[in-house]
């Protein structure tokens, strides 16, 4: 199993690109691997919570600092 965290930087990108990029990254990952997504889209907290639930993955942790959202998603 790969242990390294996959970083997806979507800062500055508008809807729907953050989840489109995150989905692309997840597709190439293995189960249990962690993806770290960065986003400056103001709607991304609600977006990521819904998207992770809908796609049956796990939102391990999230935080916001200086307008940048960071999401840690574990692939299921």
């Amino acid at each position: 199993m790969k242990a390294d965290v996959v970083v997806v930087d979507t800062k500055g990108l508008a809807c729907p690109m953050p989840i489109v990029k995150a989905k692309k990254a997840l597709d190439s990952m293995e189960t249990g691997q962690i993806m770290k997504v960065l986003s400056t889209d103001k709607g991304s907290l609600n977006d990521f919570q819904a998207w992770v639930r809908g796609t049956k993955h796990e939102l391990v942790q999230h935080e916001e600092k200086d307008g940048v959202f960071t999401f840690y998603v574990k692939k299921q």
Partner: protein
Amino acid sequence: MTALTVEKERTTIVLFSGDLDKAIAAFIIANGAAAYDHEVTIFFTFWGLNTMRKDEVVKTDKGMLEKMFGWMMPRGPRKLGLSKMNMAGMGPKMIKHVMKKHNALTLPQLIELAQEQGVKLVACTMTMDLLGLQKEELIDGMEYAGVAAYLGDATEAKVNLFI
């Protein structure tokens, strides 16, 4: 990769409108649904078909009335007008400027992304006949079908939108 095949969720959108703003909304939802790992269908009918027209003039064998329709209707995503504040073409220029400023994808980019994400693009053959549009005038990679094919997809989908 797992050999296990799980039945995917589905989303369908009927794009009836030929307005730029509505087409953008339709393609943002389609791309979002594809990112949700849904199987997505966009069914283009009436004015929505113009979104899928090629930019260039395609030589076709048509009657007078059909030719006139072809000339009067927008040729492709770059030529669509806004549903509000079109202002004889000034509106679309302004919105494209604002979208660029906000790093939003343009309609042609959204269409390309949809194709890349495997969104099924279906042209309604009945309204193609009414508007005098031929397959050669629409972008490559489209499917051609009618209401039964649409309903087949929509029946299995939880998200079905008419735009």
